[in-house]
Each structure stands twice: as structure tokens, then as C-alpha cells.
């Protein structure tokens, strides 16, 4: 991989920024932008720092299964399953199977939108309260249903009004809005649509739920090839060799990426944590270790 031309390490500007200062870290991002990659990198950084880490993920859980040890644990929380469990535990157990297959769960989740997500967050809150982990990384589902829940003023309140769930939602809301307990890290690719959508989600979270983003990860960045610009690069630009054309291509894409990155940086008010593009279609554990070394100096981790 070519060295990045601007590898100057930016630190987050927030007061006493430390990514793992709070126990729960929610990783948010549009599908395909590298949310799972970031979760894997952070699990690597955190366990290296000696933190007992629990990763909560859905389908991407397969990445952790063989890596579980005394420091790293993995839990799968699928909203649908959590809702059925909840119904089972609360007196519908004997009928549970029959009810869920006949659609009670789907009726309830349609009648109370977000109930399943609320229950997932309630489980996370339980884990946070127990002393089994120092850090909980939540690789949140792409649809971000729970974001909708917490970023609309009526979302949680409506569920709270439903009575028996009132206590649950009150406690979840307390956790969500306490930066000392929970932080939200955004992941985006440096492209137009993902950046704009991330900004939109971030602003909604800020305005409606009073939650400020803790960190901004910008994924899959290309090296900038600065030499190609200006007078010095004119010879290279004229040259039609594969090397030259590849350099011009990378340069053009990289500068488009930096524009998007700057746009995200301004809107978030956070120095982006940069992750370079790895020339692979799927990252293995060694790739993650390498990326962890690039990410580690960009975040502050207390030992």
C-alpha cells in the first residue's frame, strides 16, 4: 500500500477526548461504508489496551466467533429475536412459538414501532450495568431503525406512554443521553451520498435527542498523490503510461474524497479518524491488525 502523503496525526478536538471513556460505543453508518470494519478495528485496539470488550453485532458476528478469548466476547442481538424473547419471558412463553409464528410479534412491532429496538437497547443497558465488560461496541444495524426511534421526539415517548415499557424506555433514554455512559461513532465513506446522509442523521440526533457524535471515521481513503498537480506534475500528466494514468485517476478520486471529508469535518466539528483503503474485497484478521495500528495513534486510549 502506498504511504499516505498526509499522515499527520489529527487528534479529536473535543475536551478530554478519549474514545473509550464511556462504556458503550455505538457504531453508526450507512450500509457498505465500513461500519463492521470499524467495529473490528476498535475491538482490536481496545483488547490490545487490555480492555474486556464485548461486541454486539448481527450477521457480521462471524468475524468474532473464532477470536473470542478472555478479553473479547461477542453477542448477537437481532431485534426480532429479542422481542420474541421478551414476550416469552413475560408470560407468553408457553404460547411463544405458536404466537410468533402466527404473527403476534409482527403485530406488536407494527403497533409499537421501535419496540424491538428499544428492547435491544435495554439489553445493552443491562450489559452496561453488569461488570462483565469494560467496553461494549454495538455494530448497529444498517437500517438504523433505533436511530429513528431516538431522533424523533415522539419516538421513545410514545413507547413510554405504553405503560409497562415505561421504566425500560426511561432507563434507556437516560443511558442514550449521558455522554459519560454512551458515545455514538459515525462511519462514512468519503463520497457524496454517504457523507450527506451521515450529516443528516448526526444533525437529527443532536437536535431531537441532544446526542452529540463522539467520533467520525472516514473509511477507504485513497492516497493523495500531491506530486501530480502544478508545474512539477505536468510531465507526468502528459505521459500516457499505466503508472501515470493510474496516478491521475487516484489523484482525482482522492481529491474528491478530501472535499467530502472536509465537508463532514465541518458539519461534525470533529477531526476525522482516517482509515486507508485496503486493496481487498474482504479484510482478514491481519488486515484489521494493520488498520488498528493506523487508527490507534489517531484516538486516545487510556491504558
Amino acid at each position, binding site marked *: 500500500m*502506498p*504511504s499516505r*502523503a498526509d499522515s499527520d496525526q489529527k487528534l479529536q478536538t473535543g475536551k478530554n477526548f478519549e474514545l473509550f471513556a464511556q462504556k458503550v460505543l455505538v457504531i453508526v453508518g*450507512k*450500509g*457498505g*461504508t465500513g461500519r463492521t470494519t470499524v467495529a473490528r478495528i476498535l475491538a482490536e485496539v481496545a483488547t490490545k489496551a487490555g480492555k474486556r470488550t464485548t461486541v454486539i453485532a448481527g450477521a457480521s458476528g462471524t468475524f468474532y466467533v473464532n477470536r473470542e478469548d478472555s478479553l473479547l466476547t461477542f453477542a448477537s442481538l437481532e431485534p426480532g429475536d429479542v422481542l420474541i424473547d*421478551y414476550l416469552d419471558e*413475560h*408470560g*407468553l412463553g408457553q*404460547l411463544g412459538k*405458536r*404466537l410468533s409464528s*402466527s*404473527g*403476534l410479534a*409482527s*403485530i*406488536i*412491532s*407494527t*403497533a*409499537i*414501532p421501535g*419496540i424491538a429496538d428499544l428492547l435491544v437497547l435495554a439489553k445493552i443497558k443491562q450489559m452496561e450495568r453488569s461488570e462483565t465488560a469494560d467496553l461494549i461496541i454495538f455494530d448497529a444495524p*444498517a*437500517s438504523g431503525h433505533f436511530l429513528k426511534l431516538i431522533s424523533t421526539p415522539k419516538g421513545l415517548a410514545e413507547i413510554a406512554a*405504553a*405503560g*409497562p*415499557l415505561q421504566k425500560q424506555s426511561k432507563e434507556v433514554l437516560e443511558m442514550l443521553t449521558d455522554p459519560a455512559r454512551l458515545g455514538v461513532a459515525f462511519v462514512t465513506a468519503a463520497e*457524496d*451520498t*454517504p457523507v*450527506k446522509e451521515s450529516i443528516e442523521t448526526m444533525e437529527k440526533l443532536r437536535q431531537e435527542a441532544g446526542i452529540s457524535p463522539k467520533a467520525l471515521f472516514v473509511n477507504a481513503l485513497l*492516497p493523495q*498523490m500531491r*506530486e501530480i498537480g502544478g508545474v512539477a506534475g505536468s*510531465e*507526468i500528466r502528459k*505521459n500516457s*503510461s*499505466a*503508472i*501515470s*494514468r*493510474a*496516478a*491521475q*485517476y*487516484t489523484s*482525482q*478520486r482522492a481529491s*474528491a474524497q478530501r472535499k467530502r471529508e472536509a465537508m463532514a469535518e465541518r458539519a461534525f466539528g470533529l477531526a476525522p479518524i482516517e482509515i486507508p*483503503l485496503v*486493496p*481487498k*474485497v*474482504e479484510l482478514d484478521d491481519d488486515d484489521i491488525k494493520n488498520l488498528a495500528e493506523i487508527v490507534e495513534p489517531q484516538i486516545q486510549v487510556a491504558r
Partner: protein
Amino acid sequence: MSLNVLESSKVIVCLGTGGVGKTTAAAALGYMAAKAGRHVCVVTIDPAKRLADAMGIAEIANTPKKIQTSSELDLWAVMLDPNSTFDELVQKFATSEKQVEKIFHNSIYQNLTENLSGTQEYMAMEKLHELASDPRFDLLVVDTPPARNAIDFLNAPNRLIGFLENRFFRLLISPSQSVFRPVTFATRMLLRTISKVVSAQVVSDAVEFFQAFEGMEAGFKARASEVQNLLSQDSTSFVLVTGTHKDTVDEAIYFASKLDEFKLQVNLIISNRITPYFGDDFDTEQVLYPAGFRENLEYLTKLRSAELVQLSRLSVIASGDSHIVVPLLPHDIGSLSEIQEIGEVLVNSRSTYDNSVSP
């Protein structure tokens, strides 16, 4: 125009996971078909803002709008509004104005489109059904919602019907049934438990919902089988859109297997955003390149070959000449001319993955 699906289809359904450029592909296919003289409407759902602006459909609307193009193509687009599409369906099948009112006011109904998975997919199919008989168009290109899984899309109509026919609840609450089958003690206990665990409101909303829909399932059912019928016509083509990453390729293969279960087949695969080919003359000894330049070419070449290995896995679901690979352009797609650019690639450089597209 050398792309079969654009010539022979009346309906093109684009399928794929989110973020692979499905909407762009749908718009580009529509554009090229219109250029060849067809009367096209692109049906899209939740497009990225730039793309919606480019197509002139920034506002959600349930009626097609003509896209302003320099060469006066007969190209239209509509951004699907699942809620009002569902409302129209209810109005069509309801037996009285009172029934319509009751349904519209029910909170489960109000949450249905957004929260019952498969409902948006179903509404996209419903819109397709409606436009299929619109004399203004002879080709509809449908951009489906980013599916969580293939079953959501193909099963969508059945899923909604399954929900409406929820037998367990219907037996409990349907007044016509309860005459013959009085609410038992056990049933009352169950309702009480549900009230306690979730809320009494849910139980009463659900009872009201199923009562309000009473008698409409037949209409929905007939409609669903018409939609299913439209999908299985020879003139309906399925286009799978993928990226180059392993997960999007996995998803495409899974999608194809699901289509197969429904006796439908993939007519075309579009793989978006492959790293372009630059050549492999690494040894250009005359020129002294700055540090990193040679590595950059090696890096892009390596990335491209890893992507090609992934894409070659798609040969199990489509032959080479029905698989088009679109290179990643160095700029974002967001204007009509860029949609056209992609369209030209689709139509002209159609070939297998060893096409060498230079930037």
C-alpha cells in the same frame, strides 16, 4: 442498442442490496431505452438526493413526471410514495367510505408501511401493476427498495396477506366468527397477558385493525396474484445489481437462488464500481516517477484482480455476455449527463469482466 433486455422487455426489475448503485443503474437503463425510442418510466424509491434532483423528482409524488432532457426523450420518472399507494389500494377494495375512514385512523395501519417489513416492496409492485396498464409507457424500469433479503421482495404480497389473515388473531376477534366460537376463558387470559406485557392499547388497536380490514383480503389476494403473474411474464426482466465486494456478490448469488425458487431468472447482472484497468507496463525506465506512483499502480491492479475474482463467482448465475461490469468513475454520479455516461457503458462496453476500460 445491443442490450437485449432494453429491446424486448416491458418491465425491468432492478434488484440488489443498498449502496451498490441500483438507482443509478435503473436510471441509466431507462435513459438508454428512451434514447432508442422507447416510452419509458423509471419507478424509484428513496433515491439519493443528487440523483433525484438530476431526474427532476426531488419531491415525492405518486404520478410520473417527464424528465427534462436535451434531446426530448420520452423518459419519465416517479418517486414512489408507499403510504399513498397503500391508501389508494384501501380505497379500491373497501366496501364503504366508513371502512376507509376506520382503516385510515387506525394506528397499526398508520405504522404499517414503515414498520411491517415487505410492505414497501409490495407497494413498489403495486405501483408497477398500475403503471403496466398506462398507455403512455411501453417500458417500466423498477428500482426496488434496498432489500434486507431477497425473500422480502419476492414474498412481499404474500407477507402482507399473511399479516391481514393472521388467523390466530382473527379467530379471537372477528365478530362474525365469535358468534359461533365464543371467547373462551383461555383466550381472555391471553389477551389480558398481552395487555399487561405490551399495552392494552395494542390489543384494542389490533382488534380494531383486523375488524376494519374484514372482507378486504379477497381483493388484496386477487391483486397479489396479478402482480405475481406480471412478474413471471417473459416480457419481465430481472437485473441484479452488485458491487465488487464479497458481501454484495454473496447477496447477488443468494438473490438469484431465491428468484430461481420462484421460477424466475436473472436476465442481466450489472456489477458497479470496479477499479478500472490501466495496463500493466510497470517498467517505464525512461521516466522517473515520484515515490508511491509505481506502488499506486500495483495497488490498483491488485485491487482490480481481487474484485475480478469476486465477480467471476457470478458466472454460476449468468453467462458472460449477460454480465456487464461498470468501472468506478473518478467523480460522483449526480447529473443526467453522468447517468448517460453510465448508460453508454452499459450498452456499448457490454462484455465480460476482462473488458479493459481506461479512464
